């Protein structure tokens, strides 16, 4: 692209912006509202998925071993388990250790060992999967290994948890897509006014032999400018609001919001980029009808 053309595009865009100040303001406001809602949805999804990830990563299985196993046999079982694909970590907990842990929960007043006579607990392996979703499948494989008496992972509840998280993910992505589509439509409607005001000029350019891209560029630059201006406004408000929320809520231990600044920075930056994309997409849609000459 020639530099003189590039300068022409920018000049045309800035002329149009200053000529239609009210319309520009309306578009910026529209973009700001759209990005603000979109941003809230993204932050909500982000926090929800963080919550879901934590729930899911808590899912682990415990393999109870037959009581008669010798040390060598236990090692064999361990080797068998390690062969299974998708295992992240495996930790041996001896029956004595388990009893000690149990004793701890009962407190020192109550002597478990004395009451039970001998330790009734089996040796166990605590197994973590690389992908929590795989736990039920891996558990089945572990269960088949000779020497494993039983595998526990919260059967039933875990499957239902995964079902719920699966749908939460789908719904939140769909929600964001619907919001973005709505934003494009809204922006297309406002930019259509500015395109419509210049339809004669566009028609003339087409008949003189201007290419579609030559006509589009000034409008795109205008769209990017309006999109970025609107989304900057929205991101500013969003950052302020979320920042205040973070400060007031961190004292509550149960609710653990995403506060990683690099991640939030990425989200904010993406929202500004989304504003620019929405601006371009909106002008593209409203312009195309007038380019069909």
């Amino acid at each position, binding site marked *: 692209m020639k530099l003189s053309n590039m300068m022409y595009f920018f000049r045309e865009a800035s002329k149009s912006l200053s000529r239609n100040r009210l319309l520009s303001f309306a578009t910026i406001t529209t973009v700001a509202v759209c990005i603000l809602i979109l941003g809230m949805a993204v932050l909500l999804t982000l926090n929800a998925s963080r919550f879901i990830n934590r729930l899911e990563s808590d899912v682990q299985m415990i393999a109870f071993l037959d009581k008669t196993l010798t040390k060598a046999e236990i090692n064999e079982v361990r080797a068998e388990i390690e062969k299974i694909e998708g295992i992240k970590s495996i930790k041996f907990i001896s029956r004595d250790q388990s009893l000690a842990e149990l004793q701890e929960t009962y407190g020192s007043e109550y002597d478990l060992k004395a009451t039970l006579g001998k330790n009734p607990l089996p040796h166990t392996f605590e197994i973590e999967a690389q992908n929590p979703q795989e736990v039920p499948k891996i558990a089945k494989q572990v269960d088949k290994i000779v020497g494993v008496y039983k595998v526990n992972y919260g059967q039933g509840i875990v499957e239902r948890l995964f079902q719920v998280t699966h749908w939460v993910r789908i719904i939140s992505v769909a929600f964001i897509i619907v919001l973005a589509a709505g934003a494009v439509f809204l922006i297309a409607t406002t930019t259509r006014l500015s395109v419509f005001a210049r339809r004669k000029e566009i028609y003339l350019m*087409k008949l003189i*032999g201007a290419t579609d891209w030559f006509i589009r560029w000034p409008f795109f630059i205008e769209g990017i400018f309006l999109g970025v201006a609107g989304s900057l406004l929205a991101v500013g408000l969003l950052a302020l609001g979320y920042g205040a929320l973070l400060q007031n809520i961190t004292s509550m231990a149960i609710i653990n919001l995403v506060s990683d600044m690099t991640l939030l920075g990425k989200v904010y930056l993406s929202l500004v980029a989304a504003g620019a994309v929405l601006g371009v997409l909106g002008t593209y849609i409203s312009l195309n009808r007038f380019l069909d000459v």
Partner: protein
Amino acid sequence: MLVQFYNVSKIYPNGVKALDDISLKIDRGEFLFLMGPSGAGKSSLIKMLFREELPTRGQIFVASRSIVRMKRSEVPKLRRNMGIVFQDFKLLENKTVAENIAFAMKVVGASNRDIRQRVPEVINMVGLKGKEDCLPTELSGGEQQRVGIARALANRPLMLIADEPTGNLDMETSLEIMELLYDINRKGTTVIMATHARELVKQAHRRIIMLEHGRIVNDTPHGESLS
């Protein structure tokens, strides 16, 4: 051969038959009038030359290129061979005379140097020297059409297409505009002009194609049919 129409018909989606089996040839350097009552198909024919409309049936070649088979992306190149003059001038109100002409060059990617050189040239050619910095609203109808013609000439087109260029002008001004068009034609540009104005055409002794109900009813090389 600059323009060739082969059995061209145009039927609009509402069922109106604008052109009915038209075949014609236009040579380089010709001056051609398209005549006929309103609704005879003059505008449809003109619009097909620069591919604003496509024929429903038939083939059209401009400078040996098929307009029907042409890709959308090739249309700008086709139009750069043509200068189009409109009945309502279609000048940009917020631009001066010189800027209107420069605009037409700019949108086809002419360099600033070319523009600086060419704009005064065409302004001279149409006799508007001294009016470069006027806005269209400060000009008479005839002067505005001169700007329209200057704009059409700016990119050195092979042909000038004028759809009722004198439709909004009085007789005297119309004759002046005609003189300008003849002059342009003499310098080698093909001119195709659609018009109602029998008086203008009568004195011209140029080729006349008469259209009625979308058909060519008469095609005379020197305008004999009217005299």
